[in-house]
């Protein structure tokens, strides 16, 4: 039983990472740096909470969250693709915009700068505790999303085009692929998918809280890089990071291993991977280049 509880905990922790990593992977494979994941997730969480609050329906709330992520992503796409703004700078600005904008809107709508009113959760009433985890459609969706991303990238025409514009935009253009169009689609889709991770957090805590994504978008980036931009490896990386976090939570209060050191694991592994230990890292070659 305790083993099952721990497994469920790992699954719950990995859900936001899986969605965000899937979104990040798609955007980066198309050549657009995914530093906006944190903002996409926050937008998803905020949209889901506000949507559910005003409509009374978690399903509509989920839709609102996804729409918020996609909307933010289209701003990112417009700035970086149409206007060729620096992708890293835009990502940082949009994260700040979402953080400030959510807190501002909370004050405007609910006269609170920290959280939204309580909302109903998706799949509520399907069970409690352990059963709720396995009855939650978002949990199943999260574990399907990276395999689905593998299929999209390697088994569809769109995926082939995404990889082409991320690796060699000039060559893609020369065979008639509309590079901006593919990148727009990839980035907007990436925002929508990452927003699902944020929406899961909002439903899990039954509200939106200021700063609730708490750096998860950056852990997801770490998972993409540590997973060498491959969907299945990224899935493994998300699970690994979730296991580490579970261990940290379970060890809380014990002095054997300070929690700060467990916290560092995803970031340290990413640096190690970037330095090329354990195989050459394989970033898409046009990553970060706005021209082309």
């Amino acid at each position, binding site marked *: 039983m305790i083993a099952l509880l721990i497994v469920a905990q790992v699954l719950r922790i990995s859900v936001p990472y899986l969605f965000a990593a899937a979104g990040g992977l798609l955007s980066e494979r198309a050549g657009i740096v995914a530093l906006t994941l944190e903002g996409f997730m926050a937008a998803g969480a905020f949209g889901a909470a506000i949507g559910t609050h005003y409509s009374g329906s978690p399903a509509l709330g989920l839709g609102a969250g996804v729409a918020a992520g996609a909307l933010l992503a289209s701003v990112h796409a417009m700035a970086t693709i149409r206007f060729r703004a620096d992708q890293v700078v835009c990502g940082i600005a949009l994260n700040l915009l979402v953080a400030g904008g959510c807190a501002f809107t909370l004050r405007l709508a609910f006269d609170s700068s920290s959280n939204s009113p309580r909302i109903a959760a998706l799949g509520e009433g399907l069970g409690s505790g352990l059963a709720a985890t396995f009855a939650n459609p978002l949990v199943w969706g999260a574990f399907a999303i990276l395999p689905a991303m593998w299929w999209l990238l390697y088994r569809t025409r769109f995926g082939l085009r995404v990889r082409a514009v991320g690796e060699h935009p000039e060559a893609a253009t020369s065979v008639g692929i509309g590079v901006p169009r593919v990148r727009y689609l990839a980035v907007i889709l990436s925002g929508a998918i990452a927003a699902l991770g944020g929406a899961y957090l909002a439903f899990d805590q039954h509200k939106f809280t200021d700063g609730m994504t708490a750096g998860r978008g950056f852990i997801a980036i770490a998972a993409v*890089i540590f997973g060498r931009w491959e969907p299945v490896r990224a899935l493994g990386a998300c699970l690994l990071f979730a296991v580490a976090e579970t261990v940290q939570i379970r060890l809380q209060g014990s002095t054997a291993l300070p929690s700060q050191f467990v916290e*560092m694991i995803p970031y340290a592994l990413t*640096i190690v991977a970037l330095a090329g230990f354990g195989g050459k890292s394989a970033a898409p070659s046009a990553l970060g280049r706005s021209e082309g």
Partner: protein
Amino acid sequence: MRKLDEALLPPALALAIALVVGDLLILSFGQSPGAVFAMLLEGTWGNAYGLGQTLYKATTLIATGLAVAIPLRAGLFNIGAESQLAAGGFAAALMGLAIPASLPWPVAAALCTVAAVVGGGLVGAIPGALKARFGASEVIVTIMLNFIVLALLNWIVASHLHVPESLHTPEIHSGGVPRFADFSAVFRGSAANVTLVGAIGVAIGAWWFLFRTRAGYELRAAGLQAEAARTGGVRLPRVWLVTMTLGGALAGLGGVNYVLGYKHYYEEGFGSGAGFLGIAVALVGRNHPVGVIFAALLFATLSQGGLAVNAVVPKQMMDVLQAVVILAVAVCVPEVRRVLQDAARRAVMRGTAAS
């Protein structure tokens, strides 16, 4: 002339856009934009306390702005200023705790400043070395290092150094620098201190280094055309290592403002985003040391102004405005360059047609 237009137009456009967005946000709260902006100016430049707080914030931002701007000149993006700032402040506090209280403050302050430079520089050297040795992206390494270094410092303070019931270290024995309030009573209560003079001096030094020394020339060459610079004999890996170390050291200097100038101890989270705001400062200051000083004053005004108007409009409005300014500058820079180039080309063509 075109060069100056190209440098100044994007920030000017960005400010205009931010002003409009700010008006809309204020209106959405049912307040009068004119009154709120007047309140913001009164709370920042209108009285000595507000001015002191604004100058205090600007001091740290000059340091973190330079920490981003100088590496950007070499084509390197330092997103690690937040943790470099913390490491600098921590090192300064450690030095302040290690030295005897009998040491005269100028000597002690100098020692602490050196410690801050070394602390920040070490954190900056890591991404520089990884880039030089393995070609690892400094963007990702500095982001990841922010988390690692902050967690490490939190652990050291929480488990070994903190004053019970607090998140800060004991007070340093010596090395505190005079505040403006020590010279003039009107600044009483505000944190502005002589570190500001030092920060402006460092900015001037950075200008001299960038535009008047051989190393600065190589640094800029590496940023403008890396391949051409390499062909011309610039050792790029060395430039990367030195530049990132320098960036880290500059951010580390920002820690002096808090530790020596204000609280006299290191506290978890004292930077409160000043490292990230350094990115905005560098961007709006167009990576020029003088521009950085003005941009630091602007962003310090916004963040202090947020506190001044918080009673009528949420201070988070300033986060939104800061984001709008960054985004607008990022969008306007390539756009303005394109428009100006087109205009110049048309002018040349008209000239050829006329002759």
